[in-house]
């Protein structure tokens, strides 16, 4: 196994492009090293992106935030402006594993691992995040919901990597929230994850984005769920509709972590709870 630590995303893409064997990107390594340990992957090349300066930065721009692909979860928590703007995204990222994992895990890695249960992904989708993708020949920007195309599969070409994740500047009276269900209080993979982002106008939901995790092959944006609450002040009836829309959008599997029935049911339960938090954060009155 060759280990490379390029200084730029372009250089990294070049290394990937040249590699004929199995090549893997290393950011936090919290998924890759588990796969190595379990013998699930046998890399010929590992490209460590932590030495790419840009990948280690959180930039605040006029348009919002640019979060480098190698920035670990712990640093998101420490970034006050980011936490204030997108508390749901930061909370979701912080739910990935323990403090130890937080020292390493990244938003981009969580996205590229393409687990349907990735905690940060529904939150990023709800927030309208985009992935800045660098290839050997070109750069492109892709909405987060388009990155994963199936369990463990992404839209990235073999010469591409995510350099950063962008989050827009939240509009006024916007709030987001992410909730997941796990059997314990920590250290579990989400059985269901729900992210809600709402923007209010005169106390009512003007626009909303609702995304679900662990209930389909990829995290999904659920426009019908958003429609269920737009125009409402999140009254019980709206919440019920939201809940039903979320459950209806579920297409989960039965596995050791949850049954189809349980996941479908909980998606609705968590959606209501997450929507209430997002609503409050946006300045709504409960």
């Amino acid at each position: 196994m060759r280990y490379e630590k390029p200084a730029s995303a372009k250089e990294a893409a070049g290394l990937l492009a040249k590699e004929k064997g199995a090549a893997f990107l290393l950011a936090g390594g919290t998924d890759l090293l588990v796969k190595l340990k379990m013998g699930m992957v046998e890399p010929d090349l590992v490209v460590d992106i932590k030495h790419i300066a840009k990948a280690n930065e959180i930039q605040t721009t006029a348009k919002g935030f640019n979060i480098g692909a190698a920035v670990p979860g712990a640093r998101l928590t420490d970034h006050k402006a980011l936490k204030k703007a997108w508390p749901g995204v930061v909370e979701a990222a912080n739910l990935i594993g323990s403090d130890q994992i937080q020292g390493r895990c990244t938003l981009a890695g969580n996205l590229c691992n393409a687990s349907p249960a990735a905690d940060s992904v529904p939150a990023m989708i709800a927030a309208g995040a985009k992935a800045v993708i660098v290839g050997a020949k070109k750069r492109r920007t892709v909405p987060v919901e388009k990155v994963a195309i199936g369990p463990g599969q992404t839209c990235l070409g073999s010469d591409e990597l995510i350099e950063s994740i962008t989050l827009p500047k939240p509009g006024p009276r916007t709030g987001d929230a992410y909730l997941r269900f796990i059997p314990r209080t920590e250290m579990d993979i989400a059985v269901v994850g729900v992210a809600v982002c709402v923007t209010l106008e005169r106390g009512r939901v003007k626009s909303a984005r609702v995304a679900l995790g662990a209930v389909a092959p990829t995290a999904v944006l659920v426009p019908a769920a958003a429609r269920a609450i737009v125009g409402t002040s999140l009254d019980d009836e709206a919440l019920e509709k939201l809940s039903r829309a979320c459950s209806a959008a579920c297409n989960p599997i039965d596995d050791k972590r949850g049954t189809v029935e349980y996941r479908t049911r909980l998606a609705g339960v968590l959606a209501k709870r997450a929507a209430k938090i997002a609503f409050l954060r946006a300045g709504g009155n409960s």
Partner: protein
Amino acid sequence: MTHDNSYVEKDYKVVGSRVKRPDGVDKVTGKARYGADVSAPGGLVGRVLRSPHPHAQILKINTAKAEKLPGVKAIITSADLPDLTDGDQGMAHILENCMARGRALYDGHAVAAVAAVDEQTAAKALKLIDVKYKKLPHVTDVDEAMQPDAPVLHENMFTRGVEPAPTKPSNISARTQMGYGDVDAGFAEADVIVERSYKTEQTHQGYIEPHACLASVNPDGTAELWVTTQGHFTFRNVCSKLLGLEIAKLKVTSSEIGGGFGGKTHVWAEPVALALSRKANRPVKLVMSRDEVFRASGPTSSTSIDIKMGARKDGTITAAVAEMRYQGGAFPGTWAMLGCMTAFACYSIKNNRSIGWDVVVNRPKVAAYRAPSAPMAAFAVESTIDVIAKEIGMSAIDVRLKNVAREGTQAPYGPTYGPIGIENTLEAVKSHPHMRAKLKKNQGRGVACGFWFNIGGQTCVDLNIGIDGTVNLNVGTVDVGGARSSMAMIAAEELGIAYDDVKANIGDTASLGHNDTTEGSRGTFSSGMATIFAARDAIGVLKQRAATMWGIPLDDVEWQGGEAIATGDMHSNLPALTLKEIAAKSGRTGGPIAGHNEVVADGAGMGFASHICDVEVDPETGRSQIVRYTVVQDAGKAIHPDYVEGQFQGAAAQGIGWALNEEYIYGDDGRLQNAGFLDYRIPVCSDMPFIDTKILEVPNPNHPYGIRGVGETSIVPPLGAVGNAIADATGVRMTHAPMSPPRVLSALDARDAG
């Protein structure tokens, strides 16, 4: 020499205090050496190839390619572990479990093993071993395995304990029956009869340290084994037998042990490591991965239990019947029998009967797990008692007190109890402030009791006094949770010296006589007893030396407070001789001063506990959170209260994990799906509240200090206590453990639908 083990009340100077453990500094600085922490010159890395099939015939194992890989030094299969078990079936099963012989009986069953120069080479070699399997139908569920059309694991297994003896083999290894009285008459007397069926899933001890050993076998038949184990003497005996070694020539050293809970009482990897070393002629270190620990060490049984209990309106339980099915994994065990013995042991029930069915399935060979088999039976019985209490409108504690076992009660397995503490624990629970703590919305409270026998057994202790008067205490029971402090405290107490002047060590198999495994909560009870007698033996020598130093008759010397005192009219004016003074002169008064003891420490005192649990249930998700928890247990005598509390808390936490989320999940393919700490969910720090403890001390009459074992009992009540608390919070009776969120939610649905 026989010693008087009867309890004598006395005031203690050291015992009962909270001293610092002698191995503390090593353990907080990272210096302590556990199973995987040593290496040997020229050492190789061992790795095991395991069956991916739950049940398969092994047609052929081709190791040729792997052998050619540079760096591979030995490859073994069952052919390298010839059967030397002389018709000892239990031993033959251990051998077959260590390495499959012609058939793989569970997912993870060892099939071959490699020793190579490094990890990478060993891993590569495993991939080059070609095993041809013929898949066979499998069964992993205990009830399904008992069906007449179930795939049979052992063609030569006929159910014991049924008459007439069966003519067809089956997966039922034995039927057991216990109890006394006339249950039909008892049920006829009852005002209320409750019948319920329960299921508990398989759990694992979940010790954080995986199995690990370093084996070295020489061509002359001498060998050494460094290993994380609860019983290095037992490991020595078993490994010697399986490898054809002479017992005295195999030296086994127990490393520091990173948790056992029963799971490190049996050999798995050790005979394999020894066989690899023998073949390679080099030391071999074999460390299991976490995935291997789950798939191929010894978890506990999954069970299916039917309970029928009848009671009068005044709370008297008039009859109780249990029918219990326990799977022992791929080899027969006596787990259901233990369930039968323990199920009703907390109570005095005039008419009781327990029937147990020991069953084999395509899962790893079950090993003891802390009060083995008792928690499942108690889950069923303690839940049912709460149902009865509700039906007759009595408090659950009062129903228990009404039927509580006391001194003189006949145990369900026959004998009459001596002094026992179950009633004391229930009374303590009844008056505990926890019972008055206010419950919030969606919260409920449950109480449950538990029993475990505790055992004693063969023990051997050496006590050597240095010339400066400090003392080495060499103990042969492995210290799993702080026992060295307790032993040193007992030695100090007996000798009348300071705790800091005694250093307790765990001796290897070459330095002490046989000691039974640290299991059955026997460590402090039995080595404590042997330590007392060894110290008294040393005091005899000290007195003799003092007599010599003084030139007076031995009869005129007494030992008091760490000093020899001259008595009698002739010499009472002689100044006392301290232990240190006598030790300093030992070279000139007859040589080293030592005390020894070899004893079969019988008369272990029964352990009883009662727990209180408060739980909050999320009605929308079915998730239960423990909000308050109290353990009350009879310790007989708490030598070091911190570590007694620690045993209570740790046992309760394991029971809580079992009650809420821990379970082996097998797929339809018969493979274990959650062989890791990510999805085998033991409680994490944020899952738990502080666990309040109350130590009761009802002396065991058969121990000089009144000690009872304390390690296991408190894993027994939590399943029932949690289930009863959930029932209190929701009105729903859970009958399937773990009571995981999906199970609770579907029970809530059923309640709402009904």
